[in-house]
């Protein structure tokens, strides 16, 4: 092995790993011990690689990601268990009684937990959604939502009432109608975006574990910093692509 071949091999050498046990690396490292030019090259190369490696290791998962993965799994397990119960007992009985049509009109499985609702609404906000109505006026916005039989009687915190509206949309979630109200806070917007603050409102009864009236939950969901609360029987879910201090200023 000459120095050029050793460099080719040592290009992939990672100190502190099992690489050193590889005979090829071991041979190249031995050569570096006896070749001062190669040793200098290796030292500079490893320092550079370590610096690059540190940049990759700086990538940190957002707070709440682990909890969200776990809560969605738990919800899915409960849903499966419920379906299994239905499948094994009630469904068989209904089929026996000749009522298969009833099944077609049953609501979808019990995946109506707060965590799943928050996760799915956050994805809507961050995704390429379209607004049904673009307006910065509250009266036509409420009227539109009312016509769609979506939550329209919104009780917004005073700071949120000061934020410019951009429009609204209506979505269906587990058989419930959700109002999506979009705002623009005045921060620079990413290309193609018209809003940077989103409020989802749904009948609180649609969520199995909606927070009690008076309590307010602040949590990161996906990339959004969010606040969730219940008021007047309706569940409010407000999200912004930012930090906790930013969401709190609208509450």
């Amino acid at each position, binding site marked *: 092995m000459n120095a050029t071949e050793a460099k080719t091999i040592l290009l*992939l050498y990672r100190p502190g*790993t*099992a690489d050193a046990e590889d005979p090829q690396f071991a041979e190249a490292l031995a050569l570096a011990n006896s070749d001062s030019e190669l040793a200098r090259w290796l030292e500079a190369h490893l320092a550079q690689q370590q*610096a*690059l490696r540190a940049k990759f290791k700086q990538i940190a998962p957002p707070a709440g990601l682990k909890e969200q993965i776990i809560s969605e*799994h738990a919800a899915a*397990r409960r849903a499966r268990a419920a379906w299994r119960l239905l499948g094994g007992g009630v469904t068989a009985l209904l089929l026996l009684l000749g009522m298969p049509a009833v099944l077609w009109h049953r609501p979808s499985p019990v995946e109506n937990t707060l965590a799943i609702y928050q996760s799915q609404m956050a994805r809507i906000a961050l995704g390429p959604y379209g607004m049904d109505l673009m307006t910065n006026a509250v009266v036509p916005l409420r009227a539109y939502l009312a016509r769609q039989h979506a939550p329209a009687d919104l009780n917004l915190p005073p700071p949120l009432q000061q934020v410019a509206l951009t429009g609204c949309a209506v979505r269906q979630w587990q058989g419930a109608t959700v109002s999506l109200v979009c705002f623009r806070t005045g921060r620079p917007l990413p290309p193609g975006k018209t809003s940077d603050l989103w409020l989802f409102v749904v009948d609180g009864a649609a969520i199995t574990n909606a927070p009690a009236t008076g309590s307010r939950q602040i949590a990161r969901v*996906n990339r959004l910093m969010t606040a969730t609360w219940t008021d007047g029987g309706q569940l409010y879910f407000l999200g912004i692509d930012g930090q906790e201090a930013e969401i709190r200023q609208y509450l």
Partner: protein
Amino acid sequence: MPDNAEFESLVERFYAPLYQFAFSLTRAEADACDLTQQTFAIWAAKGHQLRDASKVKTWLFTTLHREFLDSRRRQTRFPHVELETTEAELPTVAPLSISGLDTSHVLNALARVDGVFQAPVALFYLQDHSYNEIAEMLGVPLGTVKSRLARGIAQLQQLLARDIAAGQLRTDL
């Protein structure tokens, strides 16, 4: 479907490195979160089919990478290139000052590296895997992984050096 305790233990061990890999590939937090969540969702549905428990880590990274490729709908087929054929092309490593760069600069440069090299280079720098594991995750022979790494690392260094020379990046030079 695994029970909650087993699943939580798995998430605890692997969600951070999986997210780091996903973010290295996508450079977008939302996409990286989606990929990480999707990977665990697939594990919950299909993980019981894995017979060798020691392969869980490889299985998760393989799945995440496959989901990433699916999401990008990549159509290009990449040839396997053995290390021996690339030796003549391996560049001399130019001295760089990396310490002044942000992670985003490095990932932006990685995004400009040929697509076939990006995943192995990310896995190389995240340093959680042996070369055999990386080969298994990417579904290519060991020699191909090494040749892709050599070329990918060289490309990354050249791009960073070029950016620094062009004054596009803040450095400590």
